[in-house]
């Protein structure tokens, strides 16, 4: 008879957090391929040009689709316009939020800061809170008890994943979190990754968000129209589906508690339109290995280190063909995960980590 597997504890203040410490998984040394310093400096070099071009195009598309939706309102013809507007607002912002949060979108710091604040709001990710959360995600990627950005836990909460295609669960959690922060409080878990000195920013931003939402709601009530909410607020829900599709590919079904991003992250080949919307974050293994490389240089980074990496999934479809069965199996067997093969000649997985994860799984 199969031995029952105890449920995993993903809390940041529970037994898994202590176990991660004991196993040496916290703030540990991660594997990354060797790249000559001269080449690495070329890849890391910052520039305003690509992000200015891409941001101008993104804002133009937002303005065009939003204007068309407003002009065609309330006829059925406004629906495709708002669907496009929603994807640009609720999905394309996720990668803009992410890249500017790393400070790699633009060379000019204030441009990153402005984009980060705007995209955080559109993406419903509180700016300072998520800056610290994401720093933890990069320190302890998919380490159980340390990383709060594990989208598909084991066993996966399929209902949550599905309702998040319209952002419902995340939006609900975010609003609860915003209300808590606006009242000047953080949870015990949040206190593990947001330093004291940064919490006043969390509280101030939450109060700012509530003010904006209140204004939009008041305008909608006064004008007796849904339009203000279709422009601000609701697109974070009805336009969220593509960001969720992208986001699940990053780590779902992969190994936990390893110190090699080749084992716990996934890169996926995508067409230029998707890569524009996603700002090349489909090169996710590469991004985790070298987070200083700007999005526009990730294809070049991939070419530089591809011999050391597993072959990327050939498409989104191919990615989901391995993700869905893996998550399905994890419903009944939380020890299951997708095992990556390396190309011949690649640096091997560190055996102590690779073997250890199999034993722990």
């Amino acid at each position, binding site marked *: 008879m199969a031995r029952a597997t105890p449920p995993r504890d993903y809390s940041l203040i529970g037994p898994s957090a202590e176990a991660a410490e004991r196993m040496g998984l916290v*703030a540990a040394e991660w594997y990354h391929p060797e790249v000559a310093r001269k080449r690495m400096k070329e890849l*890391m070099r910052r520039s305003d040009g690509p992000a200015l071009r891409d941001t101008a195009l993104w804002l133009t598309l937002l303005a065009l689709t939003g204007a068309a939706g407003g002009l065609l309102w309330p006829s059925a013809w406004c629906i495709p316009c708002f669907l496009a507007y929603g994807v640009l607002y609720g999905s394309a912002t996720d990668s803009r939020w992410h890249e500017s949060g790393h*400070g790699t979108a633009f060379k000019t710091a204030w441009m990153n800061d402005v984009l980060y604040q705007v995209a955080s709001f559109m993406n419903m990710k509180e700016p300072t809170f998520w*800056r610290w959360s994401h720093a933890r995600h*990069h320190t302890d990627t998919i380490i159980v008890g340390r990383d709060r950005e594990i989208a598909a836990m084991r066993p996966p909460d399929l209902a949550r994943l599905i309702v998040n295609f319209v952002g419902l669960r995340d939006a609900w959690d975010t609003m609860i979190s915003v209300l808590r922060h606006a009242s000047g409080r953080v949870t015990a878990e949040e206190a593990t990754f947001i330093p004291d000195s940064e919490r006043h920013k969390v509280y101030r931003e939450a109060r700012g968000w509530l003010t904006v939402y209140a204004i939009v709601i008041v305008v909608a009530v006064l004008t007796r129209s849904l339009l203000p909410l279709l422009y601000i607020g609701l697109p974070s829900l009805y336009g969220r589906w593509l960001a969720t599709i992208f986001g699940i590919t990053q780590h779902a079904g992969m190994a936990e508690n390893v110190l090699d991003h080749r084992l716990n992250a996934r890169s996926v080949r995508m067409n230029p339109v998707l890569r524009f919307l996603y700002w090349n974050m489909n090169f996710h293994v590469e991004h985790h290995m*070298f987070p200083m490389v700007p999005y526009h240089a990730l294809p070049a980074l991939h070419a530089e280190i591809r011999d050391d990496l597993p072959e990327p999934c050939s498409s989104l479809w191919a990615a989901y063909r391995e993700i869905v069965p893996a998550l399905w199996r994890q419903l009944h067997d939380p020890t299951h995960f997708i095992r990556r093969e390396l190309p011949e000649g690649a640096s091997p997985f560190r055996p102590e980590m690779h073997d250890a994860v199999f034993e722990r799984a």
Partner: protein
Amino acid sequence: MNRWVDVCGTDDVEEEDVIEVEAGDRALAVYRSPTDTFHATDALCTHQQAHLSDGLVMGEVIECPKHNGRFNYMTGAAVRVPCLDPLTVYPVSVRDGRVLVELPAA
């Protein structure tokens, strides 16, 4: 009494770049600015102990390779989160093509 330690040649560091050197029992990051001045700090980021010599020098700023936090390497000030605590900086002198760093007495 403080001591001056020869840590590298000026040609060992490219313009607007950083290298890591050993100086006694310390690991240091030695920077060459775009205006050809030399500077030294502790080698590891104060946030999560990443090696700053793997980072990117931009003007007067060094960006940590792990979380993109930043320091002014001339003053040691943390200028971008998640770096909050300043870096220790050390006086530097350049003589005859060599970079010397003043360290506290052992």
